[in-house]
């Protein structure tokens, strides 16, 4: 029956092509939505530094909306005592620099290599308040390099160097705390405190002590491990992730229904042909195999078309396989597992839809398929 199916498809190329494109569009949507869900999931899993605790205003979703009381750093020092290496106030902003979404961090220069473990890739650390260091992802996205001038918030800064740090997934610009304070003014103050613990300190106990001991004025503060903050930040995208997964599931159901309709149309269109096949000696299983092979060929062709389109779209349409959310980059990639699952689901959905639609045709007598006799049911 495979040869019969192939001959049938070859002689009916236009219908075959429309069927492939019709199913392929749905598979394409599925192949994009699943990586999007996974990317959103990964967004909240940025690697952090276990010895860094971030203190942020309670219940604030965007770090840049947080405001830290001026004397909070002293409270943190008092609570943690000799377990604390140092505590740094951080000025945090998400803004657009030359059309690129950028996370700007203003932190004391002496913490960059210790607390934040930044490593210079090229250039030098800033020598004065007019110089900045940019992260590797920002350099890639903006096409910037050492020596370039960037206009940030109406003021020009020179790129002194390019740096990278562990777990960095953001397009970041680093400047000294003093430079950031000068740039944005004192009104919105500091957004975060980063407490860098001694290696011997127990981060969990330190965090508990901070939560119990920090003043509860102005709504209070939360202390997070760095990765936990990112996770919480990523949780804001949870609805989008769920929606994406739901839409993926709908795409699979749509493939089933689409295949059902295509197979139903094919079977209805070929009723007489199926009757002839039965009359010349092909039994029901053979005719069923013919229709299922046909659906299988359409679904595999649809899948290959959609896979190729999805890979092209991710590589060319989105570029560099990255998805930038609020200045944070996350990988959008079509993994082999997703591709295999996609193939399985496409074939399963297609064959299920086909099977549901052809049962009636297969149970019909050859005479009724041939449209013979004045009625269609036995008296």
């Amino acid at each position: 029956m495979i040869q019969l199916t192939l001959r049938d498809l070859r002689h009916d190329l236009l219908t075959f092509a429309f069927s492939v494109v019709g199913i392929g569009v749905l598979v394409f949507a599925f192949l994009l939505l699943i990586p999007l869900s996974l990317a959103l999931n990964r967004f909240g899993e940025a690697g952090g530094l276990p010895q860094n605790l971030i203190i942020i205003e309670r219940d604030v979703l965007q770090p840049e909306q947080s405001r830290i009381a001026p004397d909070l750093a002293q409270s943190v020092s008092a609570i943690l005592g000799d377990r604390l290496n140092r505590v740094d106030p951080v000025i945090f902003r998400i803004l657009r620099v030359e059309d690129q979404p950028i996370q700007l961090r203003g932190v004391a220069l002496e913490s960059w290599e210790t607390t934040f473990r930044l490593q210079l890739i090229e250039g030098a650390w800033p020598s004065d308040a007019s110089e900045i260091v940019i992260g590797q992802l920002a350099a890639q996205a903006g096409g910037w390099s050492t020596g370039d001038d960037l206009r940030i918030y109406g003021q020009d800064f020179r790129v002194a160097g390019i740096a990278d740090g562990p777990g960095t997934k953001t397009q970041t610009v680093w400047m000294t705390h003093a430079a950031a304070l000068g740039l944005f003014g004192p009104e919105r103050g500091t957004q975060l405190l980063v407490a860098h613990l001694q290696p011997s300190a127990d981060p969990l106990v330190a965090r508990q002590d901070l939560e119990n001991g920090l003043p509860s004025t102005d709504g209070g503060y939360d202390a997070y491990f760095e990765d936990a903050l990112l996770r919480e930040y990523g949780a804001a995208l949870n609805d989008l992730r769920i929606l994406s997964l739901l839409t993926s599931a709908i795409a699979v159901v749509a493939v089933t229904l689409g295949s059902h309709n295509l197979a139903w149309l094919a079977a209805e269109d070929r009723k007489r042909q199926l009757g002839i096949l039965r009359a010349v000696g092909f039994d029901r299983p053979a005719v069923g195999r013919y229709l299922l092979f046909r659906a299988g060929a359409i679904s595999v062709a649809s899948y290959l078309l959609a896979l190729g389109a999805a890979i092209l779209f991710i590589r060319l349409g989105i570029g560099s396989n990255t998805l930038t959310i609020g200045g944070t980059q996350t990988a959008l990639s079509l993994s082999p597992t997703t591709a295999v699952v996609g193939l399985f689901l496409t074939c399963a959905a297609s064959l299920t839809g086909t099977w549901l639609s052809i049962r009636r045709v297969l149970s019909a007598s050859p005479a009724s398929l041939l449209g013979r006799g004045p009625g269609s049911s036995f008296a």
Partner: protein
Amino acid sequence: MHPEADRLDDDSPGLPRSYVQTHNLTRTFRRGSEDVHALVDVTLVIAPSAFAVVLGPSGSGKSTLLNLIGGIDRPTRGHVRVDGLELDSLTERQLDGYRRDHVGFVFQFNNLLPNLSALENVALPLVAQGRSWAQARDQAAVELTALGMGDRATHRPSELSGGEQQRVALARAVISRPALVLADEPTGDLDSASAEIVLDLMSSLNRDLGATFVIATHNPRLESRATHVIELTNGRMAAPALRT
């Protein structure tokens, strides 16, 4: 043909040996709330290698009779026996096998699969029997050549005339050398010249292959070629005629 035959167990002494035998064969269809009696109590015998013609106007039950003899439909009541097989007691799978191994069909129109070439259409019954496409195509080429269609083998049905299509259908019906060939209005859509060619071919195949032909037609001119004539009116048999 002996309408008085009242049982199917054995051929009665003195009667011609039967190949097709029916007893009180009845087929009723339901159309809405109404019963339509397409065939009523048809009892007949057709001898081996006969060239039987079923005559009657449209709606007289000719096609229904062929459907039941060919095993593509089941009777509401009564019995059909072909070559010793009681069709009404066969399972669906056995009926599939019966059609595959014993029967060749020629229909009035749209006989062929449009997406296959003439050669591939003719090869189908052999493929259904489990032969490879290559073997089946080789045999189909021989068959088409024998029926004067060798040069049209690669053409698709839409590229063939009505008469050519029926010759291809005839080649397909006989390629597996069935003992029974059923043709339902095989010349109904043909001009008289093409009809003559098809009928001549059927007569010669009947002689050469020894197969039993049962042909439903509303064309009384076919009567002159028949060894058996069965007349149906409103699903019932008229007076029988036997020319042996």
